[in-house]
């Protein structure tokens, strides 16, 4: 956790009780880790085993029973993008969202597009085979094309510094290559997605961000096992 940001006495009081429930690999939990670390906020981490959820997790998130859950002074915050907005409103240093309302709306739009369209379409490529997979690749690349265009003239989606949309798309910087390796498909190539590839490099290597990546070999093992489950269910085409 970063300690380089200057913390005021008031912030120390607000930080008093801050706990993050997460797993080692959860891409949504990682967004919250980054947001807290970028703002220099101290917190306790509780690692959950999702096959054996703690009673605390079930108590804090009875609706979804999922991570991440951020508990601030006993009050649970749920849903990673909602948590990010809460963090940004509570701790004003290193803002994640711009000030201008229309720019904020655009940031929310692209974060939502990432979760609603990009992520599921890439997951589809990962779990499907044959002709279904070919169709899934077309859809995924169309969605990635929309994202690529958002990087025109910018280092990060937020401009010169990392913001909400960068954190929302963060999983692209580590998980995408894991998916590509496990299922043997290259989705993002230099010809079609030069800006996205550059963003991936910049984001993956950024201070604070790079300190939290889960171990790649462990991710490969995890997703290899998942891939086998999904592709063995499919009838051969």
């Amino acid at each position, binding site marked *: 956790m970063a300690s380089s940001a200057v913390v005021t006495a008031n912030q120390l009081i607000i930080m008093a009780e801050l706990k993050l429930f997460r797993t080692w690999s959860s891409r949504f939990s990682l967004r919250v880790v980054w947001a807290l670390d970028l703002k220099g906020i101290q917190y306790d981490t509780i690692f959950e085993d999702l096959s054996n959820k703690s009673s605390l997790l079930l108590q804090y998130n009875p609706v979804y029973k999922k991570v991440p859950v951020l508990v601030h002074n006993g009050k649970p915050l*749920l849903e990673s993008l*909602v*948590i990010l907005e*809460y963090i940004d409103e509570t701790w004003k240093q290193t803002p994640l969202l711009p000030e201008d*309302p*229309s720019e*904020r*709306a*655009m940031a929310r739009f692209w974060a939502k597009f990432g979760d609603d369209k990009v992520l599921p379409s890439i997951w589809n490529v990962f779990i499907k085979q044959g002709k279904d997979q070919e169709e899934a690749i077309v859809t995924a690349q169309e969605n990635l094309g*929309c994202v690529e265009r958002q990087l025109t003239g910018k280092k990060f989606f937020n401009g010169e510094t990392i913001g909400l949309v960068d954190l929302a798309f963060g999983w692209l910087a580590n998980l995408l290559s894991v998916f590509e390796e496990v299922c043997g498909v290259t989705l993002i190539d230099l010809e079609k997605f030069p800006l996205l590839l550059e963003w991936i490099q910049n984001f993956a290597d950024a201070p604070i961000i790079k300190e939290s990546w889960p171990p790649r070999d462990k991710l490969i093992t995890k997703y290899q096992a998942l891939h086998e489950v999904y592709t063995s269910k499919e009838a051969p085409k």
Partner: protein
Amino acid sequence: MAEETVKLLGYWASPFALRVKWALKLKGIQYQYVEEDLPNKSPMLLQYNPVHKKVPVLVHDDKPLAESLIILEYIDEVWKQNPLLPIDPYERAKARFWAKFAEDKCGPAVMAAFSKKGEEKEKAAKEARENLKTLESGLEGKRFFGGETIGFVDIAAGWIGCWAQMTGEIIGIKLIDAETMPLLDAWFKDFLEVPFIKECMPPQDKLLEHNREFHKILTAAST
């Protein structure tokens, strides 16, 4: 003059466009309304929302915004009167959570019950009722999600009551009832009686007929 700077592209039967109409009405914002003929989307709509090509689109000072819940937050940030979201960050987070829950779990479940047949329909209806029961817990015993007055979640989820009622009539399965969800049932009724909410609603008989036709098309298409 003010009317020219705010434009809403919508469709009369779209619950998502309705949300934006409600928010604009609540805040007393003048705007120009453009009715889209959805089977024949206008070049303007395609230009303003190239990613999703859907309504609603709010255009403010020539800047187009899409996705109704995001438009609601924008409206709330630009026009401060009659706020939709509370001031306290934790209360705001709760509101965003329940709006998202209604959006991700309740709306689609009602739509699934509406568009499927036989066993799939029964299963979808059961899921819709369960999710609506969960939504009820978000009320925390209050009259509206916003407390004594309409707020963000009320506007985000309010359409579901009306559509769930119509769906129930069309498919013959009740999705909301006073017995199992007394608070939610009371909330939907109270919500639909609020004057500015009522004023923006499309004519009920026309909407029911429209949805009956839509149901026929969807269930003919599904195997």
